Structure formats: C-alpha cells, structure tokens
C-alpha cells in the first residue's frame, strides 16, 4: 500500500509541474528523485540527447560530485550510451565482473559501491531523446515491476519534455530540447554564484534556489537568470 501511495503522490507532484509555467529543470529533478523513492534504486540520473549525437546529464537525484562525474563518464562509455544507440533497455547487472563494452565505467561504478546499473530509453515514437539511468547497490537485474515502472517514469519524462502533440515537426523538438539543455546550464551557473555568496555546498545551493523558486512560484531558470543578472537579492535565500 505504501508503494501505491508513494506512486500516487509522485504522479500528482509530476502532474502539478505540467502547467502553464512549465519548469523543465525542476520537473526532471523531481522525476529523478521519485525514481529513487519508487524503484528501490540508490541514484537516478536523466540524460538528454543534445541533437548533435551526444547525451548530456540533465538531472540527478544526488548532487554529490563523484556521482555527477560517474554519470558524465557514462555518457562516453556505458550502458546508457548503448541504450541510447539501440533504443533498448540496457544493464550491467554485476559491476564486479568487468564488461568489455565499458571497462572504465564499470570499474568506477563498482568502486563507487554500486552493484548494477540500468539504462531505460526515453522514447518518442521511433526516436530516442534521452536515457533514464539507475544505479543500484544490489548486483542483480531490476524486478519486473520496477523495470515496468521505470519505463513508465521514463515515458512521463518524455511527455513532460515535449508538450506539443504535433511532434512530427522536428523544429519544435529542436527548440524544446535545446532550450531545456541551456536552462540546465543556467541553473548550474546560478548554483555556483549562490554557493560562493552564501558559503554553501552545491546541494545546499540547489536547495536554496529551489526553495526560493517554489515560494515565489517562479521557474528555476528564471530565478537563476535573475541571480546571474544581479536583479535579485540573494542574502536571504534560505539553505535549509
């Protein structure tokens, strides 16, 4: 029952974000966190295709730099890259055993304490626009219900990202994806400003940014822009 309740809460929270002032960075952040709650995994990361042939990290359930580095390593070599190319769920269910397809990534993921990693595609009809990446402590495949729910969450991510129904227009897809990718960069830059000004770590800086955005009903990227432009007073941004 608890899991069903968590699931219901997750979908309500996600649906709440699919409104007029859609905040893509926040949406993906919520989704990544909900994956951890719902799927019994330790860390979740969302990658988007940058339309130049490469994946980029868009959101992570953890701000720890070593985990971000691991995600970014996997962009060049790992199950998530294979998933992106094949469009099929791809996993390494035992990181202790080296896999010739991703030797460096496998070693680092194992050294970070994970037992397995699972990549699920974000699909838009025939196209793969990104990957949902899940890291687990256990060295085993995902349970069927977790694999299904994981794919459902990946599909929710896709729907949330692409709010136009007529996505046969490649142009709209390009606009949305590139806009989302740049919004994330903007948010990361603003985190740096806050971290420095308020003497915070990056996770606390992100939390302060989100708290302010939610309290004032504004988009993360709009607050981020204001922080960088200097049009907002950050001295009273809370960190807890």
């Amino acid at each position, binding site marked *: 029952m608890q899991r069903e309740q968590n699931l219901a809460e997750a979908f309500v929270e996600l649906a709440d974000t699919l409104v007029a002032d859609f905040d893509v960075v926040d949406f993906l952040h919520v989704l990544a966190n909900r994956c951890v709650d719902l799927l019994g995994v330790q860390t979740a990361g969302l990658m988007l295709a*940058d*339309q*130049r*042939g*490469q994946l*980029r*990290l868009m959101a992570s359930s953890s701000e720890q*730099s070593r985990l*971000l*580095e691991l995600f*970014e390593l996997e*962009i*060049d070599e790992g199950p998530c890259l294979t998933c992106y190319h094949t469009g099929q769920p791809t996993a390494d269910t035992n990181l202790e055993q080296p896999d010739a397809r991703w030797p460096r990534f496998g070693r680092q993921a194992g050294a970070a304490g994970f037992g397995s990693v699972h990549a699920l595609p974000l699909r838009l009809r025939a196209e793969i626009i990104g990957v949902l990446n899940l890291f687990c402590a256990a060295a085993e495949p995902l349970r069927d219900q977790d694999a299904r729910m994981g794919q459902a969450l990946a599909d929710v991510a896709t729907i949330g990202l692409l709010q136009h129904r007529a996505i046969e*227009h*490649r*142009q*709209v897809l*390009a*606009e*949305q994806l*590139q*806009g989302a990718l*740049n*919004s994330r*960069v*903007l*948010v*990361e*830059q*603003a*985190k*740096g*400003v*806050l*971290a*420095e*000004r308020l003497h915070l770590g*990056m996770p606390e800086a992100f939390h302060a940014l989100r708290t302010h955005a939610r309290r004032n009903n504004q988009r993360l990227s709009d607050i*981020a*822009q204001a922080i*960088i*432009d200097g049009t907002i007073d950050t001295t009273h941004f809370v960190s807890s």
Partner: protein
Amino acid sequence: MSADRRARVLALLSAHGPGVDRLCAACVAHLPGISGAGLAVMTTLPASGTRYVSDEASARIEELQFELGEGPCVDAFAAGRPVMVPDLSGRQYQLRWPAFAVGAVAAGVRAVFAFPLQLGAIRIGVLDLYRDRPGGLADEEIADALVFADTVTLLLLAEDHAEGDWQVSAYDEHRTVVHQATGMVMAQLGGTIRGAFDRLRAHAYAEDRPLDDVADDVVKRRLRFDQFTD
C-alpha cells in the same frame, strides 16, 4: 563532447578558423539546404552588431530584426532556444512578427532558423540561417547547424582572449563542474558571467591544465580568483 563531435568542431576550426566570417561562409557552403547565413553579436537586446552576412537577403534579415526589434533571431536570443520557422508565410508567423515576416518574405526569405550562441547565462549572439524556399531542416541538418553554432560560439569566446593560439583545447565546456565554477568565479570577481568564464579558461590555458580540472579546484574551494591581481 563526444569524440566524433569534438573532431568535427576541430576540423571546422582548422579548416576555417580563426576568422568567424570564414566559418560562417563554410556553414553556408556545407549545408546544402541553406541559402545564406547572418551572425548577430550581442550581450543584450538590441543587437550590437552584425559580424557576418553571406548575401543581401541575410543582410536584410539582420537589418529588419535590428530596426524592428522583432523576429526569430530576437526571440531565440531572449528565450535561450532555437527558433525554427519552416515557412514565414504561414499565418502563425505573420501574426507573431507582422512587420518582420512581410519584410523578410519581400526580400526572398521563406524559412529562417535562428540558433542562439550561448552557454547558460553567457549569451553572445545568434546565428541566423535562411532558405529561399519553404521547408524545415532535416535531423542531420539540425545537428550540423548546432555544431556550427557551437563552433562559432567557441571562436567568439576566444576572441577576447590573448590566447595566441586560439585552438579549442581538449576540454568539454559542458561539464557540470565547469558551469558551477563559472558561477563561483563570477561571485568572487564581480563582473559578468562571461568574464568569469574567460578568467577560468585563461587560467587553465596559462597553467596548461584541462578546464574541468581547474573548475574542480574552484568548486572544491582549492582555488579562488580574488587572490589574483592580474
């Protein structure tokens, strides 16, 4: 950057750089579906200047947007995302940019694809591609246009630098830690976000270290930029 994309960027720079106008000319030559290109440079609206136009129609596009303060280029810059217009005679575009659409179509422009040149809050201009007949860009063309836009962005960012050798070093400007460090350096030095990015790159270049290594030092608070006097 994936190895493939980095290779494409480096190849373009070697073949056509460091002059940004030569790179834009190469973009037009390399994208068969594109009739022309214009490069507008600005840090805020309105555009401060046109760095390149390939022909009269491109010049007219830049002129109209500058004079009227409306158009796909203006919207792309303001919104921080590409604006792709497969047919300017379409009703929704005529409604969105009434004066621009009429003027551009009269100049022989039927489709416009505006790519903002940016890295988060660092916004330096827009690359406007146009076509003299209606039609959208295919996936391959979008990918190529984005790579050209990235390369133009890197070139423009390097221009202010006394980097002698403007060569794009082996860094990936899209690492999270680089963006965070940029923000921190901006808070340390004051000034602009672009200035902060320039200082980070200059330091990496002077120390002959990868940019993301330097950025990591900044984020881990092993390196600050307000202790330097230059």
